[in-house]
């Protein structure tokens, strides 16, 4: 068995979490960091080795990669159902392995510099290990219940890391907000899982490899699929939609996105790892995992995914244009980009080509996964770059930046490359994936396609607004004289460079491959049908989106590059209300606050609390009060006077005798 070491991928980070968590505080900062980083390097090597072995192995007769389950054991048998724990390797989980371990390793190295001298350095590395373990467990899960368990674990680690600076009030508030909002969404996920398990008698992802389906055949489900279908056609769409709500919470889809911007209170490398590259795409991964069921049983419900995605993408892009905190801009751009992935999965049309799923009709699946991959790399790079800037300026506010290109050349170049990637300029990785998404959208419906093109243009605009705001524009001389910005240390710049190399490398190859029709691009490894899919760009769409992206960048350059920004000021003066609304995120937090506090708390929670306090608690308090009073009144009898006891005993005996005699 060639994958027999794969359990180490989960065990090593767990081990380093336990070691650092228990003994970390007794260690030097450097030792603790090295333990975490070394165990993660091993995990990365193992992941790469697994990926290389997996993707170079022979395909099956149908031309797909085999789904391999190296480990699986029943953890909790429960009648017909059973909860398993194990490892499942299929193209998307192996792809996720590579993404998670790469970004996590970069973040581990980067944190050496960024978190240098912080109090709780060891705790930080312990939590990073816990997070990495949970996230890897999530993608390697063999069944939906295991996925749910690790899903909650990533939620916990995210909570712990957002609240890392726990003496600060905003950090605590943000961590609680993130935890509560995602838990609220996860409740629906759990209901979805239980509905699914109840009606199909199975939690297993046994359909994962069965993406190749004969026309009219159904994905294989280990349990009793007939039961679910007999119970009504709405069961599976309902279960899947409920699961999607859970995914939407984790992936910050509108209107459950409110936690992600606040989650930026955590250390910046954590934002890069958890809130940009890995955890927030768990919702996308979940849909990709359940994709065979969506496409077969709930194709109509996929339009929910599409429209939630479209609204989120637009909303987040609009808000990102008006934020002044650089991490908030990146947070909203993350929300917008994840929405792109959601839309991509949603626009996959049900369709078969002969005996197998149609790769072309379901281009969105491949595009969504591709965008997940490229986005993880360039967004992690952007966040780590932002971390370098914050490290240099000691602030998140764009007003204190400007003109930083002179001081921080490496950060400047890597940031620019990542901005070009996210804007969708050819030869950078974002171009290929975003272009495939737009192509898929156009095939689904031209309306969605053009909306997404527009949002892509907004993306290019706000990213370059950010770029010019940080590196060009007016330099805040006063702040910079007081504290001259400097380039970050090597531990921080090397991860930037590595991520940039990936971005450019993937970008150049996939762009050339897409135009020239070479194989070996992303579609060869991950595609809806699992077969080798060669990406061909639709030249018309590619040209349109490139031109639009370049125009947006030019617009941003025109408005924001100069020392003074008359156009931006004039726009601001013309639409103060619009600017204010966008800055305030269109009052989403206030609406949630109103709905929860004024409506739910007042109309639902208060009566329930009253009932609980007065009726439920009252019953038990009354019982306790009665027992107490009874005891109090009886205790006088225990005088300790033996002769009194004897008299009572005698009286009692005589009385009893008389009673017996009378009977």
């Amino acid at each position, binding site marked *: 068995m060639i994958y027999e070491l794969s359990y180490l991928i989960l065990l090593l980070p767990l081990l380093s979490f336990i070691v650092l968590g228990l003994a970390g505080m007794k260690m030097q900062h450097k030792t603790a960091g090295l333990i975490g980083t070394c165990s993660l390097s091993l995990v990365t090597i193992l992941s790469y080795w697994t990926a290389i072995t997996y993707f170079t192995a022979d395909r099956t007769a149908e031309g797909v990669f085999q789904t391999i389950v190296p480990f699986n054991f029943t953890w909790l048998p429960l009648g017909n159902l059973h909860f398993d724990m194990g490892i499942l390797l299929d193209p998307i989980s192996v792809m996720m392995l590579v993404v998670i371990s790469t970004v996590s390793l970069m973040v581990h190295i980067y944190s050496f510099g960024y978190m240098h001298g912080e109090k709780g350095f060891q705790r930080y590395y312990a939590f990073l290990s816990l997070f990495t373990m949970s996230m890897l467990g999530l993608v390697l899960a063999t069944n939906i219940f295991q996925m749910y368990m690790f899903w909650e674990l990533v939620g916990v680690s995210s909570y712990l890391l957002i609240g890392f600076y726990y003496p600060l009030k905003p950090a605590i508030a943000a961590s609680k907000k993130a935890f509560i909002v995602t838990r609220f969404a996860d409740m629906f996920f759990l209901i979805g899982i239980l509905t699914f398990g109840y009606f199909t008698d199975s939690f297993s992802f046994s359909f994962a490899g069965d993406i190749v389906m004969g026309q009219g055949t159904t994905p294989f489900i280990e349990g009793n699929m007939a039961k679910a279908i007999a119970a009504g056609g709405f069961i599976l769409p309902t279960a899947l939609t409920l699961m999607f709500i859970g995914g939407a919470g984790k992936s910050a889809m509108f209107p459950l996105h409110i936690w992600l911007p606040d989650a930026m209170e955590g250390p910046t490398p954590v934002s890069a790892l958890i809130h940009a590259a890995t955890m927030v795409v768990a919702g996308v991964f979940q849909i990709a995992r359940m994709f065979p069921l969506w496409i077969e049983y709930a194709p109509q419900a996929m339009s929910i995914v599409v429209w939630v995605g479209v609204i989120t993408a637009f909303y987040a892009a609009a808000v990102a244009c008006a934020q002044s905190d650089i991490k908030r801009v990146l947070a909203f751009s993350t929300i917008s980009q994840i929405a792109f992935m959601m839309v991509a999965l949603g626009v996959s049309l049900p369709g078969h080509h002969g005996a197998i799923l149609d790769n072309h009709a379901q281009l969105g699946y491949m595009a969504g996964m591709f965008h997940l991959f490229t986005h993880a790399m360039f967004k992690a790079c952007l966040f780590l770059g932002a971390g370098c800037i914050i490290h240099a300026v000691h602030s998140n506010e764009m007003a204190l930046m400007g003109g930083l290109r002179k001081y921080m050349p490496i950060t400047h170049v890597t940031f620019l490359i990542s901005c070009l990637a996210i804007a969708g300029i050819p030869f950078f990785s974002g171009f290929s994936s975003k272009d495939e998404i737009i192509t898929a959208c156009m095939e689904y419906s031209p309306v969605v396609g053009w909306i997404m093109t527009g949002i892509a243009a907004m993306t290019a605009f706000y990213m370059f607004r950010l770029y010019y705001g940080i590196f060009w524009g007016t330099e805040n001389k006063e702040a910079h004289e007081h504290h001259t910005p400097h380039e970050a240390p090597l531990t921080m710049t090397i991860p930037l460079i590595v991520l940039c190399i990936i971005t450019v490398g993937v970008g150049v190859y996939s762009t050339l491959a897409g135009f020239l029709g070479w194989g070996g691009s992303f579609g060869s490894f991950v595609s809806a049908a699992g077969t080798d899919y060669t990406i061909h760009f639709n030249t018309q769409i590619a040209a349109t989106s490139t031109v639009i992206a370049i125009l947006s960048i030019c617009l941003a350059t025109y408005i924001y590059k100069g020392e003074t920004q008359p156009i931006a000021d004039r726009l601001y003066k013309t639409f103060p209300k619009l600017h204010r609304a966008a800055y305030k995120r269109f009052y989403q937090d206030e609406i949630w606050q109103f709905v929860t506090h004024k409506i739910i708390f007042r109309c639902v929670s208060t009566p329930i609390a009253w009932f609980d306090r007065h009726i439920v608690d009252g019953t038990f308090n009354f019982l306790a009060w009665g027992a107490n009073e009874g005891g109090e009144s009886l205790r006088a009898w225990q005088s*300790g*006077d033996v002769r009194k006891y*004897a008299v009572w005993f005698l009286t009692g005996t005589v009385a009893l005798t008389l009673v017996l005699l009378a009977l």
Partner: protein
Amino acid sequence: MVPVECYFVLSALLFFIGVYGFVTRRNLIAMLISIELVLNAVDINFAAFNRLLFPGELEGFFMTLFSIGVSAAESAVAIAIIINVYRNFKNDSVDAISNMKG
């Protein structure tokens, strides 16, 4: 021959004298003596009823002997307890040790 009722009268008198003594005396030794009186009343009853109801049988007499044996053991234990109480409380009144109720 003494009529059998006399034994019952004697037994009843002893019993109530014992109970009266147990209830009224405060001295632990006196209370122990009262308990012995009650036990003796019971012993007499056993013997008398054996004679009255089952002449020729011996169970009642055996029970009397058994009871005497038990009461001897019981007084030994009781006296040991009383001595310990006296050592600890410097007192042999039952009221002095009412805080032993716990």
